[in-house]
């Protein structure tokens, strides 16, 4: 069996002795979209931050195409080919849209194909091109989210991590974002998607893991989106 693009293996995360994630294992194959849902405080964001090297790994391992990321710095992991669209977008409000996008280049390995990627990203999110000279803080929340995803894509990552990209967005913008995620996957980017919108995610991802109380509770396939009973039980357990 080939190595999965991203493997989380018996991951343990603790904040000052309090466990945030316990024994989480999951794999994302190349070109797959895997969802990670669950109630607030279940450990979803912590998992993404641990993969990215922002939060220390207390036990277990994270591997990118078989290569361990444990103990690596965020900038090393970014340059190794993982990009994170953080919760709350974290665009730089005082910088222009174009400068925000340029920051994504910090994690890019080489400039080959940059023009083509830029055209693709501009096509995916036209607002990023249209408002490139504006300060990013002047964009609406949905536009900032598109900028945050565009910024991650410009690094040409192998694996894209998204932390609640639909948070606080109007329904039509959520549609835009999810349509873009489909196109991003079609380009061969592997995606791990953390979301609050459970049904939408289950229906969209190749499979979705439910995390509750710091542990993996349930894994659902795309055709199980309407199985709300099992979902509710996992959430409430």
């Amino acid at each position, binding site marked *: 069996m080939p190595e999965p693009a991203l493997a989380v293996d018996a991951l343990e995360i603790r904040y000052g002795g309090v466990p945030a994630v316990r024994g989480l294992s999951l794999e994302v194959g190349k070109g797959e979209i895997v969802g990670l849902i669950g109630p607030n405080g279940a450990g979803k964001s912590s998992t993404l931050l641990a993969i990215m090297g922002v939060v220390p790994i207390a036990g277990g391992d994270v591997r990118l195409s078989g290569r361990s990321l444990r103990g690596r710095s*965020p*900038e090393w992991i*970014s340059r190794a080919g993982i990009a994170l669209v*953080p919760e709350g977008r974290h665009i730089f409000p005082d910088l222009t849209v174009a400068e925000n996008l340029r*920051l*994504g280049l*910090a994690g890019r390995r080489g400039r080959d194909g940059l023009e083509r990627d830029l055209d693709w990203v501009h096509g995916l999110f036209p607002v990023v091109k249209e408002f490139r000279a504006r300060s990013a803080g002047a964009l*609406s929340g949905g536009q900032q989210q598109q900028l945050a995803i565009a910024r991650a894509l410009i690094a040409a990552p192998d694996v894209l991590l998204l932390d609640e990209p639909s948070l*606080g967005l109007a329904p039509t913008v959520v549609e835009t974002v999810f349509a873009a995620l489909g196109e991003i996957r079609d380009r061969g980017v592997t995606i791990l998607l953390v979301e609050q919108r459970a049904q939408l995610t289950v229906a969209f991802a190749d499979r979705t893991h439910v995390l509750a109380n710091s542990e993996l509770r349930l894994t659902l396939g795309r055709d199980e989106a309407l199985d709300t009973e099992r979902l509710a039980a996992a959430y409430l357990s």
Partner: protein
Amino acid sequence: MSLLQQLIDAVALGALYGLVAVGIGLVFGILRLVNFAYGELITIGGYTLAYLSGQPSVVAIVACFAAVIALALVQERVAFRPLRNASPATMLVASFAVSFLLQNIYLLAFGSRGKTVSTLGGLNTALAVGSLRIRWISIVALIAAAGLLAATTLILNRTNVGLHMRAAATDFRTARILGVRADRVISFSFVISGFLAAAVSVLLTVQSPLVTPDYGVSVTIFALVGVVVGGLDRLVSATLGGFAIGFTTSLVGAQLPSSSSVYLPSVVFGLVILVLILRPAGLFAPARRAVERV
């Protein structure tokens, strides 16, 4: 001395303090470190110039820049890098320790009596324009400060490393997630900070040529106060604050009768207290934008 002449001297001193404020503000923006040991960078530059006073000015000045930048990098590597995840208060106290340590090393190595710098001493002569007598150093300080501020702005706004520094100053964690190398950005900010300190050494030793172990302390304290008065959060407001304190000090000093000159710091710091009561966020800090985007 006419008011115009006093204004020119005040602008020149303000420019010098503005440079110190930029040097301190750059590092603060990225590390949240108020580097009290900045003054010892200026001091080592002064000693380098003093010991090389017999050499051609170019040699002495190049050596000054090299020594100051090297010490800035050593400060970062030895003292501040191990504390990178510590609280700002811890780093501030550490910078006090570095400051006192260096002052005492200077005392042991160079003695307490001070060394005299004669490099560029000719700039103390005055240029007569009508009834005005402007010292050359005021003109040079003004031009040098303006040039250095412009260069720093260009680096920050037009280069990749400048973009990375601005991003790191706003949100270091997100910048690192995007691949911005923390060590490189921090080292580079110390290099620029050291470069500015070296320029201050060269300009300051022309006006006060006697270098003692605590040579850089008072200019650093004044500039730090200026940075706080201006607003620590933004480089522009910090720089303006540094400029304002230098400008005010020079102008008030010229207005006070010489018998009352001991009261100069009291007057200046009294004004500082007044400003902080009226505008606690800083004299030049913009009004808070509290709008959250959805």
